[in-house]
């Protein structure tokens, strides 16, 4: 063992080619990442650190100067976030929301991307049309849906009634049983284009000769899709899903506009905002924000570990 340690510590040729060429390439890599890192750390580092620090104090938004260090009391104390049933309600809502909307969006996004990828004269127009929901500001589109879903003068109810699908106007956003579904559906409407566009880009990058080979091999289309297209676009789909999950876990505008602070649909971000801004509890709110961050980080990491395992196992 000693000899081994010795040789690895002092190899016969101190600078093997491998390390040196590799090292200069790695140095260059760091240089290239530097701008992104500097920008992000500069603009996000300070605010994030501040949030973390505030979460350990009892600061109030109205007067930040008199804060006191309270340790983890905002997290685990009797009055900590983790002891608040409303927080856990928000956690449950958010998780459900993310799970439902992201999975629906992925499936629909894939379908829409395939549709956009189909050669057709309508292609250009379709691409623009499909992206419209993403292009309308969330605040506006949320309000628009609220308006359209209105039980009295909303067009949706009017149309469904006219078609005879329902007999009474539905209170889409007010009915506790419906509100959650409605929000998921509107979110799906809004962000499917995001998925679709990224997946479309991924589809375009699949080398065409693979398709030709499969064609000649007589592979049916569904199998080409499952065994060639899908594996080749998986990395892009996964990234799109990560960002969608991230966004879904932080969902705010949509819920806030459509159902306000109703407990039935309250998300973690709505909770955070409520504490931080409405209630002025800078310390407590920051703690909630940090918990939200930790939860997202945890989900992302485990998700990526899972994805990697799946991809490698394949």
């Amino acid at each position, binding site marked *: 063992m000693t000899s081994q340690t010795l040789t690895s510590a002092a190899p016969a040729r101190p600078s093997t080619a491998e390390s040196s060429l590799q090292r200069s390439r790695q140095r260059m890599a760091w240089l290239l990442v530097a701008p992104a890192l500097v920008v992000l750390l500069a603009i996000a580092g300070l605010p994030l650190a501040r949030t973390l620090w505030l979460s350990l104090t009892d600061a109030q938004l109205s007067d930040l100067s008199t804060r006191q260090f309270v340790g983890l009391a905002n997290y685990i104390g009797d009055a900590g976030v983790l002891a608040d049933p409303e927080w856990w309600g928000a956690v449950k809502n958010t998780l459900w929301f993310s799970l439902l909307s992201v999975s629906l969006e992925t499936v629909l996004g894939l379908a829409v991307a395939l*549709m956009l990828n189909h050669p057709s004269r309508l292609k250009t127009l379709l691409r623009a049309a499909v992206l419209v929901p993403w292009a309308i500001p969330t605040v506006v589109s949320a309000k628009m849906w609220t308006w359209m879903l209105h039980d009295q003068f909303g067009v949706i109810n009017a149309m469904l009634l006219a078609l005879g699908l329902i007999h009474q106007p539905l209170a889409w956003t007010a009915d506790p049983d419906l509100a959650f579904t409605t929000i998921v559906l509107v979110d799906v409407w809004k962000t499917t284009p995001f998925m679709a566009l990224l997946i479309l*880009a991924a589809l375009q990058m699949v080398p065409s000769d693979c398709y030709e080979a499969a064609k000649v091999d007589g592979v049916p289309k569904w199998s080409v899709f499952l065994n060639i297209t899908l594996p080749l676009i998986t990395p892009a789909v996964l990234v799109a899903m990560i960002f969608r999950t991230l966004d879904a876990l932080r969902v705010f505008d949509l819920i806030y506009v459509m159902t306000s602070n109703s407990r039935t649909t309250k998300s973690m971000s709505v909770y955070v905002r409520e504490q931080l801004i409405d209630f002025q509890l800078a310390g407590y709110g920051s703690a909630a924000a940090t918990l939200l961050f930790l939860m997202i980080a945890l989900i992302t990491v485990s998700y990526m570990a899972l994805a990697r395992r799946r991809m490698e196992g394949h």
Partner: protein
Amino acid sequence: MKRIEFTDVLYWLAVPPVLGFALFPFVYAIASSFKQGNALFSSDFWPKTWSLANYAGVFAEQPFGQNLLNSVLVAGGVVALSLTVSLLAAYALGRVSFRGRGVLMMTILGVSMFPQVAILSGLFELISALGLYDSLWALVLSDLIFTLPFTVWVLVTFMRELPKELEEAALMDGAGVLTVIFRIFLPLLWPAVAATSLLAFIAAWNEFLFALTFTLSGEQRTVPVAIALISGASSYELPWGNIMAASVIVTLPLIALVLIFQRHIVSGLTAGAVKG
């Protein structure tokens, strides 16, 4: 001449509902933007009388043209900056293996894991300290927080897929890293670049919270804020017609942008590059 294939049938079956679902609210917005007064509270789809008053109102009541320009500048600046910076980073992260790569990727992603409200006040102080308050630069900088991680990650993913021989050929040709990134990879990444820049552009275009908080004067505001500022005669009244008109106006440039950029989302950019 060719036989009609199953996928074609499926395609034509899928187009109408997808179009309907995607466009219905927008068409509704257009219809509403031509409605006046009480017609907004009826469930009729099309207005009985068409009126341009809402459009006139949007431009009359505020510097909406200026707001549009601001949005273009901010979103354009954000996209240009994040693409440049993230192409560099994506090359390093996607094509060089070095220790700490995973951690870097996670760090970059981590930035966009905090809810926006939570970093708002910190960012506000930073922006004030830099003297950027109430300037478009404040928005460009703060929007990078969410566009940059996105563009970096997407470009890393796509950049990984490009054949390594291409890069090597360029290196042999004496090309520097920047040349490889911008002259060789960028043209091949057009589908990804076009898609991400469209998505990032729209995200920056529609960003509300930062834009509201970091600007104050009407001349520096972007359109989402301008829309939020539209109000009726009293604070409760919702000037729905104006809002719809404004929404239609802000969406149109984006549609134009999509029409222009989607051409770059084309396949076969790497055809003929390598054998094997």
